[in-house]
């Protein structure tokens, strides 16, 4: 896990637990939270789970670097990233990105950019577990 006051990054074995309680110090007027959930099919074929592999510690370091870059670029207050490794069953959460900012616009823009860049650069892979 990598943590600063503004950034939290955690890679967790198996499905992610429910979202932790949000910081309520009033600094953020907006929290945008995206949860990626395992869909029941992959390319039209049923699956029972996805199995994630992360190249550590590079994956955590890349997520933290990306969080820092996004935080500065968009003037955010907080960026919190959680990603699964190992097996995550259909319907369970495998990725959560929580972005806190003073106003909604910068958080919404940052959300899209973070996910696009993560899918290019962060060494995490998934493979289907066929049903």
């Amino acid at each position, binding site marked *: 896990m990598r943590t600063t006051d503004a950034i939290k990054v955690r890679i967790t074995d198996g499905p992610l637990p429910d979202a932790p309680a949000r910081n309520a110090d009033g600094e953020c007027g907006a929290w945008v939270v995206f949860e*990626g959930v395992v869909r029941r099919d992959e390319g039209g074929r049923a699956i029972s789970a996805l199995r*994630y*592999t*992360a*190249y550590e*510690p*590079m*994956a955590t*370091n890349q997520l933290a670097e990306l969080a820092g870059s996004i935080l500065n670029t968009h003037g955010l207050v907080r960026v919190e990233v959680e*990603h699964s490794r190992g097996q995550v069953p259909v319907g369970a959460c*495998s*990725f959560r990105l929580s972005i806190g900012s003073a106003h909604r616009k910068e958080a919404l823009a940052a959300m899209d950019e973070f*996910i696009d860049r*993560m*899918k*290019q*650069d*962060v*060494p*995490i*892979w*998934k*493979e289907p577990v066929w049903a």
Partner: protein
Amino acid sequence: MRISVKLFGAEALAAGAAEAVIDLDMPATCAELRKAMRAQAPALAASLDWARFAVNGRYASDDEPIGPGDELALIGLVSGG
């Protein structure tokens, strides 16, 4: 000397292994490693046209030097999220 390069995802599937063992004179560069892998790991030829190397956990350009003891990985298409 004989070095190993970690493989993941589609590259691990293509090679049928979690690492590629390559003979390479050290010190070398990532470009020389790429050339050696093309010759010695033909199953990875398609990926080697564009996949990136990581050296000690950081993406490396082709002119980056590598030496004995460096942790090397071939990073193809990632698919997190």
